[in-house]
């Protein structure tokens, strides 16, 4: 059964899902939602995703939204079928994976999202971004990245010695930070963080996501 993913190749949350499905070897079809014209807020998409966001998936009769819920579901499915385990093997490893997934949601993503909004999205819409806010977020992010650097000095990946969804979940927003955000120095200046980024962003699954036509 081929999973239908509703979203766009260039948006962070659909990228999170697609990278995971490539990683696990689950086939999918991307059904494009035109974010520029606001298709995600149209009635048909609201039936799939009541908050008017992307992505959502359809797997036969099974439907799900929220990228991080989707990757947990497929990671669980793969692990229970004896396939690739991206969740963690022991109770403790699974806990650390969940911990770093939550850190990404609460301490990482909001700062990057705010900066990219001010630096890229608002100017594209003809508005002026708030540079004071960017400066404030950048300062906070520096402190957050110091914690990541310390963590990655003790283990190869965020959850432990194996690549898991805790690392994968960081791919889309880190790329946004470094490219559209123009802040690659924040990553490159931190040795362990930089090595971790080079490792996870060169995985075939991520390269396939990057190769998808915009």
């Amino acid at each position, binding site marked *: 059964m081929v999973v239908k993913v509703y979203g766009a190749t260039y948006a962070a949350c659909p990228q999170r899902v697609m990278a995971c499905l490539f990683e696990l070897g689950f086939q999918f079809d991307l059904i494009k939602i035109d974010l520029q014209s606001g298709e995600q807020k149209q009635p048909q998409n609201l039936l799939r995703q*009541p*908050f008017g966001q992307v992505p959502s998936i359809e797997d036969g009769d*099974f439907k*799900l*939204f*929220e*990228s*991080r*819920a989707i990757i*947990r*579901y497929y990671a*669980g*499915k793969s692990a*229970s079928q004896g396939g690739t385990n991206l969740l963690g093997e022991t*109770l*403790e490893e*699974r*806990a*650390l994976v*969940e*911990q770093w*997934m*939550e*850190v990404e*949601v*609460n*301490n990482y993503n*909001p700062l990057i999202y705010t900066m990219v909004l001010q630096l890229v999205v608002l100017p594209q819409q003809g508005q002026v971004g708030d540079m004071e806010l960017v400066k404030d977020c950048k300062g906070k992010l520096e402190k*957050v990245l110091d*914690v990541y650097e*310390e*963590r990655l000095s003790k283990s190869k990946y965020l959850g432990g010695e194996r690549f898991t969804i805790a690392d994968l979940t960081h791919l889309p927003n880190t790329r946004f930070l470094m490219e559209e955000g123009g802040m690659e120095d924040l990553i490159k200046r931190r040795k362990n963080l930089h090595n971790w980024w080079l490792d996870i962003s060169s995985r075939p699954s991520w390269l396939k996501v990057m190769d998808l036509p915009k």
Partner: protein
Amino acid sequence: MAAPVKVYGPPFSTAVARVMVTLLEKDVPFQLLPVNMAKGEHKKPDYLKIQPFGQVPAFQDEGVTIFESRAISRYVCDKYANQGNRGLFGTNPLEKASIDQWLEAEGQNFNPPSSILVFQLTFAPRMKIKQDENLIKQNEAKLASVLDVYDRRLNESRYLAGDDFTLADLSHLPNAQYLNGTDVGELFRTRKNVERWWGEVSNRESWKKVLEMQSPPAPKKA
């Protein structure tokens, strides 16, 4: 012998409350070790060893140290799956996926505006910090849109993820409790299904125990 499970943080913290109510639902005894945030204890080196971002709560269980309230709650449901409320995180992958979906909706859509409102309306006055009226207005509007989605969902199912109370509903308790003690509570009361749902989830025994832990005990009479 003291309970092996330790929760670090003040009981009035929404994230600490989230962990406590999970432990109570799962019948897991724990010790609450207070952290005095007014005195900056959460930013001191000893605390940063267990929570390097300087936030509350932190959690320890027999040598495992974790932070992030939703991660802690998931861990508790994983380790103690067969005790207390067994359906709290679902009993099969499809149920769990639906719970994860609404847990993420809470974290991504409900939490940001509700956290700002909880701070502005409940904590800022206590800390003698000036309220930001614009910020309050903006986030009331965002929360209203989110609760519209919830109201439609709760018209179709008793709880967010289905017919039973789950971690997805639980995760909303701390912020929603504070908001229902302010004018923003109107947003809950004027949405019929949300009002019904709030009445049910906030009346759970586990949540009532957390509320007791959040209120200081009355001074003993001589």
